[in-house]
C-alpha cells in the first residue's frame, strides 16, 4: 500500500510509514486477539518475532493512531440497540468544525463526520450516527442535537437502515 497523499486531512498528515513487520502484525491481529494467557507472545511466535517487539510495535501504533483502540466491539443489535439512525444536518460550512466537535461529544453519537454536499439532491454536510433501543429513543436524541445546534440547523433528516445488504468489514492482505 502507498502512504497517504499530500491532500490527506491535516489530522492524518503525520501518518508514519508502516514497515513489513508492522503489516504482518496487522494481518495477524485484525480479526482479533487470541484468548490465551499470553496473547502477544502467541502472535510473536506465529510471526517469528519476540513478544517485546510485537508489544513495542503495538504501543507505537496506538501512540500514532494507526490503532484506534484495543478492546471489544459490541454488536449494538445484540445489546438491544435496534434502531440506528444516520442523522444528517445542513449547517454553515464555516461552523461545521466547531459544531461537529460538540455533536461528536454526545453519548448517543457513535460516529460524526463532515462530508461534502451534493446539491441539489443532498444539502447535508454534517453526519452523526445515533443509536437507540427504538426509533422513539433515536428521535429524542435527534431533537436534543437540533436544540444544541439552534439556528445553525438549516435542515436535517434521519435515515434509518432497513436492511444490511453486506457487512464484511475492512481487511488488508
Amino acid at each position, binding site marked *: *500500500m*502507498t*502512504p497517504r497523499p499530500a491532500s490527506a*486531512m491535516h489530522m492524518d498528515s503525520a*501518518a508514519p510509514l508502516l514497515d513489513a513487520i508492522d503489516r504482518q502484525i496487522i494481518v495477524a*491481529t*485484525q*480479526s*482479533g*486477539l487470541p*484468548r490465551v*494467557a499470553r496473547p*502477544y507472545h502467541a502472535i510473536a511466535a506465529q510471526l517469528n518475532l519476540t*513478544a517485546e517487539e510485537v508489544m513495542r510495535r*503495538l504501543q507505537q*501504533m*496506538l501512540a500514532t*493512531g*494507526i*490503532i*484506534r*483502540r*484495543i*478492546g*471489544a*466491539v*459490541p454488536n*449494538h443489535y*445484540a*445489546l438491544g*440497540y435496534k434502531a440506528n439512525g444516520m442523522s444528517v444536518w445542513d449547517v454553515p460550512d464555516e461552523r*461545521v*468544525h466547531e459544531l*461537529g*466537535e460538540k*455533536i*461528536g*461529544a454526545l*453519548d448517543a453519537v457513535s460516529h*460524526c*463526520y*463532515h*462530508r*461534502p454536499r*451534493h446539491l441539489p*439532491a*443532498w444539502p447535508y454536510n454534517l*453526519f452523526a450516527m445515533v443509536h437507540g433501543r427504538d426509533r422513539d429513543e433515536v428521535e429524542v436524541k435527534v431533537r436534543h442535537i437540533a436544540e444544541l445546534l439552534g439556528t445553525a440547523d438549516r435542515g436535517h*433528516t434521519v*435515515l*434509518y*437502515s*432497513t*436492511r*444490511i*445488504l453486506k*457487512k464484511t*468489514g*475492512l481487511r*488488508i492482505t
Partner: protein
Amino acid sequence: MDALDRAIINNLQGGFPVCDEPYREVAGRLGTSAEELMRRLDVLLENGTLSRFGPMYHAERLGGGLTLAAMQIPTDDFERVAEIVNAFPEVAHNYAREHALNMWFVLATETPERIDQVIAAIERDTGYTVHNMPKREEFFVGLRFEA
C-alpha cells in the same frame, strides 16, 4: 448475560493492556480470573454479543482509501443493483436506508486512487449515479455502548 458479562462489555471497549499477561491484569480489575475472562469472551464472541475483540485499526492511516457513497435506486431494480454493488470486494458495508438516496455503502481500497476507479466501475455496471461522500473531517466520539 449476567453482571460479569456486562462488566466485561462495559469495561473492555478500549484500553486492553499491552503487557505479558493482559487477561490476568483485566481479570484482576473485574474481580475474576484470567481463565474465566477468556472463557466469557469466547462465549460473547460466539453468540454474537461481541462482533470482535482485538486492535481496531484506523483504515486510512494504513494508507488505503475509504469513503461513503450513496445511490438512488428504483425499488423494482434494487435487488439487481445490490447484487452488483456487493460483488465488488472493495464494498465493505452496504445498507438499505429510507430516503430517496436508498443505498449507502462504504468503499475500502488498497490505495486512495482506487476509490474513483471503483466508483466509475459501479456506475458503469449498474447504470446509476454514485454520490461520493468522503469524510472531510472526523470528529472525536467516545463510543460506549452500555450493556
